[in-house]
């Protein structure tokens, strides 16, 4: 009896302390969580967020901070823009877009079907903005780290596994948008993007998605 009590106490203690130490339990993506994300995503027509990007370089033990803003409008318009320390960004509407950089005059047009690097980035951003779990499942093994708020761990299935260890995606309390993305690379580097000041379903001027000049 004493041994049983001791075991129960130990289990209780572990259940409290391990999550606090970062030891989390992952479970497979359930139909319920899938449904919650799908329903919430259907309610999002537009999304605007500021973000802070922290890139950790393991060889220098250095964290690089950048800030920017992000706009999305259903079904296929996107603006991703870094403001500090160096301005750069791109806009996408459908299968084409414009990109720019503070150090280069003007902007450059691109077509997603002719630019594999941009296509890869666009695919990821649209998948997260739309919570497109069907696409995500084709590319990652998904497990659920937390259900409230929803936090998913994604392990790449194919080519990306060479350099990508896993991603951690955290949604806001209403499940409607992502508040944090962590990208863990195989060599120990990582990137964390925290989205803040998010505004859902506000009206976004078309000019936001047309070119570099906003103001």
């Amino acid at each position, binding site marked *: 009896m004493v041994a049983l009590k001791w075991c129960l106490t130990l289990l209780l203690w572990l259940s409290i302390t391990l999550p606090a130490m970062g030891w989390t339990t992952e479970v497979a993506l359930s139909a319920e969580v899938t449904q919650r994300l799908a329903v919430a995503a259907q309610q999002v027509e537009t999304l605007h967020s500021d973000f802070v*990007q922290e*890139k950790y*370089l393991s*060889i*220098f033990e*250095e964290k*690089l901070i*950048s800030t920017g803003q992000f706009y999305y409008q259903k079904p296929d318009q996107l603006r*991703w823009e*870094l403001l500090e*320390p*160096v301005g*750069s*960004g791109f806009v996408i509407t459908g299968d084409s877009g414009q*990109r*720019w*950089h503070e*150090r*280069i005059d003007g902007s*450059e047009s691109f077509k997603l079907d002719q630019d*594999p*690097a941009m296509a890869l*980035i666009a695919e990821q951003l649209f998948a997260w903005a739309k919570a497109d779990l069907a696409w995500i499942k084709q590319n990652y093994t998904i497990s659920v780290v937390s259900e409230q708020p929803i936090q998913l761990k994604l392990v790449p299935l194919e*080519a990306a596994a*060479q*350099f990508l260890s896993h991603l951690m995606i955290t949604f806001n309390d209403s499940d409607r948008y992502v508040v944090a993305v962590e990208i863990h*690379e195989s*060599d120990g*580097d990582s*990137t964390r993007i925290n989205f803040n000041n998010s505004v859902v379903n506000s009206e976004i001027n078309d000019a936001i998605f047309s070119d570099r000049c906003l103001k």
Partner: protein
Amino acid sequence: MIRYNWPWRSKWQSLKLAMVLVCCALVVGCANHPFERHQPQPLPELTAQQLVDSWWLVTGHRYLCRHSGLLEVFMRKVALEGVVKVDTTQQTARLVAMDTMGVKLFDLLVTKQGHQLNYLLPLLEEHPQLPKMVAKSLRAIFLQPNPSVQQRLIRRERRSVLVADSGDSFEFIGMPVRLNRKVVSSEQHSWNVEYNQYLDQNGLWAPTGIVLTDDSGFRLTLWIQEIREL
């Protein structure tokens, strides 16, 4: 990474490419200088030792430098973000170059004699010249050659120049005294580095705008965001 692609994709590509190669040196040479330049103040008579001592990359130090860069190769422009660790004792520079999204493009260790490519983004494997060019530029900017007290000193009113036997020259201006320009010239190949906009960076008097111009047709510009001694 922003890449401004070759606009020549037609059947006349070869001919036009040849025309571009002929014009490229002019284009790079005539490109706008990205940093303001002012008439330097008169420079007092300083010894070679005093000039060499003013150089921020003197031996015995290690620095970490965050920068953004623009590589111009012929008519093409590539924007990069980077962090470089310079060890002036070992004469090495380790660079991690990224695109603006934080995606690592390549990881290079540059020494006096060569370089080692520790990582290259698979999408860049068809552009092996890119890390090679950057390695060569880093060596020129941070490692080799360096001003030395053994070099011949030529004094002018507003500048002093140390000239090596090889013809390499190091131009200092003032005040405060600072290396303004490094020139390496030979019959086969010439390049120069300009060090602009010196600022106090965490107690270190160092340039924040660096331009390397190579007569083979490329230019690398670095905007230094932060330098600190390790």
